[in-house]
């Protein structure tokens, strides 16, 4: 890696270059991504918006290094991504906490996997505090509500000090009140920690409320159809007329503006 992880460049720079991807092989190929080009600047918050099942989540798996693209290249700070790495942590739609581990041990997962737990165990408690769940350290996942479980999943991601946080509809299954609260929490965590963030969502308002740039995808195979810069300072206000304007624009790109 060329770029040193100094405080100003803590977030990773991601280059997605002409990435196409298909599932299956031979005649039964199902194309899901069609020459996607996208750059994420260090510390930038980018949202990917598109109809469900269009292939956004596939793109995230490629960025995370969980799968390799059929064509094209994905670079992190100039180096190709070919395997998962703890500098890029994924938060999934389901919290996917391990039910046999207590909350604290779930959060400790990444440190334990890399053999850092003994030396840096204090980071676990710090991460739990950051999401406000230090009182539940000894609880089992089945004792948590959906929102709490997702916050534990966030803490489990943040404890690794990721340079890129990959968010795959992390609030998709939460009730609307919890969802609004956690959107604000996410902005705050992102601003404090300075990681780059790549969020997949099909909630237009969520994308506009959180991200500095919203990328709109087409139906499968996903192509980028529009890019909407959200030029609003944080903290944002949901009633902002500019957000309403941008929302209209985004819906127009998705072909859903008839109801407006």
């Amino acid at each position, binding site marked *: 890696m060329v770029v040193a992880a100094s405080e100003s460049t803590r977030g990773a720079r991601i280059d997605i270059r002409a990435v196409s991807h298909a599932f299956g092989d031979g005649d039964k190929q199902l194309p899901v991504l069609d020459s996607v080009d996208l750059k994420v600047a260090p510390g930038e918050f980018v949202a990917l918006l598109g109809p469900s099942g269009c292939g956004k989540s596939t793109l995230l798996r490629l960025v995370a290094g969980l799968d390799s693209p059929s064509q094209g290249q994905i670079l992190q700070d100039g180096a190709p991504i070919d395997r998962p790495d703890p500098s890029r942590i*994924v938060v999934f739609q*389901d919290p996917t906490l391990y039910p046999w581990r207590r909350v604290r041990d779930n959060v400790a997962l990444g440190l*334990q*996997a890399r053999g850092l737990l003994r030396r840096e165990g204090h980071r676990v408690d710090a991460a739990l505090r950051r999401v406000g769940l230090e009182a539940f350290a000894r609880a089992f996942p089945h004792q948590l509500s959906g929102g709490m479980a997702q916050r534990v999943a966030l803490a489990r991601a943040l404890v690794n000090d990721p340079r890129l946080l990959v968010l795959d509809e992390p609030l998709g299954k939460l009730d609307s009140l919890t969802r609004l609260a956690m959107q604000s929490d996410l902005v705050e965590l992102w601003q404090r920690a300075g990681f780059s963030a790549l969020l997949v969502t099909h909630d237009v308002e969520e994308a506009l409320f959180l991200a500095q740039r919203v990328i709109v995808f087409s139906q499968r195979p996903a192509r980028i159809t529009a890019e909407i810069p959200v030029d609003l300072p944080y903290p944002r206000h949901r009633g902002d007329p500019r957000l309403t304007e941008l929302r209209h624009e985004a819906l127009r790109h998705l072909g859903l503006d008839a109801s407006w």
Partner: protein
Amino acid sequence: MATSHQTLDAPLPLAGSAGSAGSADAARTPSSVWPVGIVAALTWGGFGALTWRWPNKVAGFSDWAYTEELGIAVLVAAAALLVVALAGGYAAPLRRVRQTLRHAGPWLVALPLVFAAWEILTAKTALLPTPFFAPPQALIEVYIDDWRRLGDSALNTLKLLGFGVAYGGVAGFLIGVSIGWSRRIGYWVHPVLRVLGPLPSTALLPLTFYFFPSSYSAAVFLIALATAFPVAVLTWSGVASVNKSYYDVARTMGASEAFLVLRVAIPAALPQVFVGLFMGLGASFSVLVTAEMMGVKSGLGWYLTWAQGWASYVNMYAALIVMALLFSGVITLLFAVRDRALSWQKGTVKW
């Protein structure tokens, strides 16, 4: 995971609804008498009295031993039960005894009725003839006269079971994990498992007695085989059905292959492993007893054939009761271990 939990839980709840109703009114009136207890005491008293005072029907040999002793002992127990039922509310230790007994109340009424019927049909009227049937006091005679041989047999059975199940459990677990994890190992082992697994271990009995240096080692091998098959299959299915995103989560956080196996696959498969162990134990009991009857010169299975050789049916009943208690104890132990290991599954865990 949920299904395995239910499967294992099924034999556990012994608590009848009658018992819980009883404890509810116990909480309301702690010092009052215990009506079911009084009924139970009277029933036991009836059983004791008829055993003691009703003369045994004369068979072609000397009288049943311990008839009087049994009757008196039961009467004493009935008196004690009566004290607990009447005065249990007034003294703390008695109250505790009553609290434990209360749940068993209906059973305490039913059991003496069964015993009384048994006593009447055998010793008192000989409607069920000797030597195939024996009264309760005959069992007592066996336990008192032959406890050393019975205890020895029980210990040997337990030892043989321990070796076999330990080897089989470990082997089955390792096989299950490796075919669940590695495609290449699965390619080779899976067909073997499919063909040989369903073969009852007892069918291999003659062959193994021939191949192994001793009938004891042959029996250990067969018990291990019987245990290993269900453990392997269920461990394998447990490992194979682990939520794939559990692996994704760990992989993005830099987990090694070993970490994925030891810290993700195995803990996630553990509920299934316990189902496998439960099934394996059941299979191993049957192989164990057969092996002891056929070749091994010790253990409860051997005791059964030995007693049969002497046409001593009372000894067989006595050994069967010991066997039932022993095996049910082993299963209970497995459940206790499971409840500890899988405490995260229960909704009642406090922290």
